[in-house]
């Protein structure tokens, strides 16, 4: 679907704050700084921006960000539901807005203090029941102590391990690779701090089968991305990262974080749905992707994403990891910024920025001959994904 819009728009600016555990600033300051940096990166003036797309859990209202940036008028503004699952959706909806003519330059951003302010990983323990349908969904899990994102994901992981034969060490390979890339990325929180598989195995339980080092960080920071038409992009400062396709997906008895009632809880059908759209819209396939940012809020759900995109068969992601495919020099170097375990957990937006750098050829962990980069967004919620490509 939406194949007309493929390759008609591009990412032209990326900007971020530093990534920390205590920014010392308000989320609004972080949001505005990140957006300003993205505009500078693109060489675009704020007065040309007329669209903002962000996604839920964002506390910085787009009108306040626009006010601070002195954006004179917004003709397109939207907020996509489901948190990190929407990260790539922001780029897709920005591209749609531009393609449809409802905006010219669209800023997408995420900025928060989810470590030094309210800790994101603490979950819904303080969320008291309301009567709205979304609140009621927590009624099926909270009374039993299933209160945190880690606990929701652990339920998928146990069954996945049972059916696929994947082990905790296989999950650990994702963490070790992330931290290896982070160790050579000065922007990463865990710069110069790699871990070993032993470190992973010895880290304490958070929710079995998840160790501490299976869980992404809680971070303070902001990341902004500027989208415009390919035509305008070609006149700007940086080579465009063409949005070959972006897709959102929700399917098959979808629940928020707890899709426990569908036939096979070891698969991610909404990600498969995104993959099908991307391959169809671009005509590309797994072998056309040189680098990827695979969403890694929790390592266990990294594995079935590889399967849904066809990088390996169902249940065989563990072999794909054991063979070193996601490392530098492998068939699919992944999360070259250090991912959300190593760089920062900015709900996927920093992964998109890294894909832009890979397309531009400016990553600190640059993969050779990158033509197409895949990015996926948060899993176990309605999700999204995109492919960025070089302009020729």
């Amino acid at each position: 679907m939406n194949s007309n819009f493929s390759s008609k728009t591009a990412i032209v600016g990326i900007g971020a704050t530093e990534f920390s555990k205590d920014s010392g600033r308000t989320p609004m300051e972080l949001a505005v700084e990140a957006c300003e940096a993205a505009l500078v990166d693109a060489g675009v003036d704020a007065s040309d921006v007329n669209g903002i797309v962000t996604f839920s859990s964002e506390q910085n209202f787009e009108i306040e960000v626009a006010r601070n940036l002195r954006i004179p008028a917004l003709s397109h503004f939207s907020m996509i539901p489901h948190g990190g699952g929407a990260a790539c959706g922001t780029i897709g909806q920005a591209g749609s807005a531009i393609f449809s003519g409802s905006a010219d330059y669209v800023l997408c951003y995420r900025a928060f203090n989810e470590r030094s302010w309210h800790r994101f990983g603490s979950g819904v323990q303080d969320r008291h029941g309301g009567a709205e349908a979304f609140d009621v969904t927590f009624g099926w899990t909270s009374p039993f102590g299933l209160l945190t994102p880690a606990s929701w994901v652990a339920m998928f992981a146990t069954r996945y391990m049972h059916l696929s034969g994947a082990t905790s060490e296989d999950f650990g390979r994702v963490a070790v690779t992330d931290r290896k890339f982070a160790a050579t990325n000065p922007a990463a929180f865990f710069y110069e701090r790699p871990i070993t598989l032993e470190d992973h195995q010895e880290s304490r339980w958070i929710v079995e089968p998840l160790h501490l080092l299976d869980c992404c960080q809680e971070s303070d920071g902001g990341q902004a991305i500027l989208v415009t038409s390919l035509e305008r992009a070609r006149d700007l400062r940086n080579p465009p990262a063409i949005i070959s396709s972006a897709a959102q997906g929700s399917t098959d008895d979808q629940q928020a974080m707890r899709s426990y009632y569908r036939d096979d809880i070891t698969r991610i059908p909404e990600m498969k749905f995104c993959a099908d759209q991307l391959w169809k819209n671009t005509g590309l396939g797994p072998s056309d992707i040189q680098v990827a940012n695979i969403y890694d809020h929790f390592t266990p759900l990294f594995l079935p994403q590889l399967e849904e995109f066809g990088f390996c068969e169902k249940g065989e992601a563990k072999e794909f990891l054991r063979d070193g495919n996601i490392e530098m020099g492998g068939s699919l170097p992944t999360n070259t910024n250090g991912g959300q375990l190593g760089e920062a957990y900015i709900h996927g937006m920093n992964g998109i920025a890294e894909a832009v750098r890979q397309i531009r050829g400016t990553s600190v962990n640059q993969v050779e001959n990158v033509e197409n980069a895949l990015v996926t967004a948060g899993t176990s919620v309605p999700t999204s994904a995109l492919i960025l490509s070089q302009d020729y």
Partner: protein
Amino acid sequence: MNQDLSKTDETVSEQDDFLNLLTSQVGSTGKIEVARDNVSEPVIRSWCDAMSENNPLYTNPDIANNSKHNGIIAPPAMLQVWTMSGLHLGSQFQRNTEDSPSAGVYELLDKAGFTGVVATNATYRYDETIKPGDLISGSQKLLDVSEQKATAIGVGHFVTTETIYSDASGKQVGSMEFRVLKFQPGTGKQNQQPPKKPPRPKPASNSSTDWFWDACNNKELRIQSCDDCASLQHPPAVRCLSCGSISLNTVIATGKGTLHSWAIAHYPQVPAFDYPLIVGLVELEEGVRLVSNITDIEPEDLKIDMPLEVNWLDVDNEFTLHQFKPIQSVKQKSKSESDGEGENNSQISDLDQNDSDTQITKKQDPKLDLKNVQIGDELPISLVPITTLLIVSTALATRDYQDVHHDPKAAQSKGMPDIFMNILTSAGIVSRWINDWAGPEIDWNSIDLRLGAPNHPGDTMTLSGSVTEKNQNGNRVSLNIAFVGKNSRGMHVSGTAEILLPEITGD
């Protein structure tokens, strides 16, 4: 007691001095205390009423007169009761406390701020049967005063005494070794009143889902069903997810299913729950799944697809929640259901030999087949609701007028959250429970109790125990019974009782 902490040496030496003072009476014996009254049937009956003791030898003259005792006997567990000082509000009767070595130590400790008191251990030995008319006296010896100890309840000293009980002729009828902790309220390693555990989060619900939780309160597991296509679905919706029908109904699930997956939560810890916390995804045999806690299993024993059955948790008076537990193995299952089946099951003959006691107990047969009691046999579990009435009436029936057993404010001023059961009652209730099991014909040798978490009103104590030793002593067989009484705070009492089975008079 000591505000000047500037000179550590001085402080230590002051502590030494205090300990020397406390221990100066160790080894000494107080004056013989003679009971105010002879052992009498009304006092026995009051005690039996309060303890729910039904042994006819204690209260029923017709039966007692035809027993080997030729009349009513006093419950052995009342040994300590007879010489208790009783209540004397303004009466002339004043016990001369200076003659009791422990009383002197208590007074010293009270003055030094160790005003709290809890009994921690008691060992009763029963040498002779006590009968109405006997006049009991007690002679207390101070065995030990410990150095200052930091305990969970508070900083304090353990005081150990031994009391020898005799009848009017001077013959020893029994003895008691008794240990109490005198402590400074508020100095516990953990606050004695643990922060009251907040309740679990109640399920967010609305009129589309209230029926599910209402059914749980009736211990029914209901699933949404479609009147038109008969599909089942969970979580509930406002349309049939299969055919779109608006005609939705519910069916009652069998409560049986399998473990589809699980998560074991360790961190972060929310006060309402105990960790590690097992949360399972249960696939009901009707085909839908739901999230529930898995209980009665260790994490390492969890297996994908293991059979489970529903297990209801009364969170509070208004809220019952489904939990799931493993379906018992075949052997255990046939044990609990053996009353109902038993035509063609080859295991039944084994059961008849091995589990005759539990079966008989269950059938309320008054005669336990004592000859066939074996080591490992379990006593029937007994639930004892702890009420204010029980605590106060048993305190009075044991002639124990200490304020901590009837006055909540006094209990609080001594570092306890509420009034609590006295140790004479713990001993009495355990004895009654063993009598209920073993029958009136037994004799008592001894009971040894270790006291832990207090029994406060509103709690329930669960008594369980088993036979740990069986010995031939001359023409008598003795049984050792290890027991434990647990309440919501933990172990209230544990210990061992030694009883003698009736003489076998030839078959």
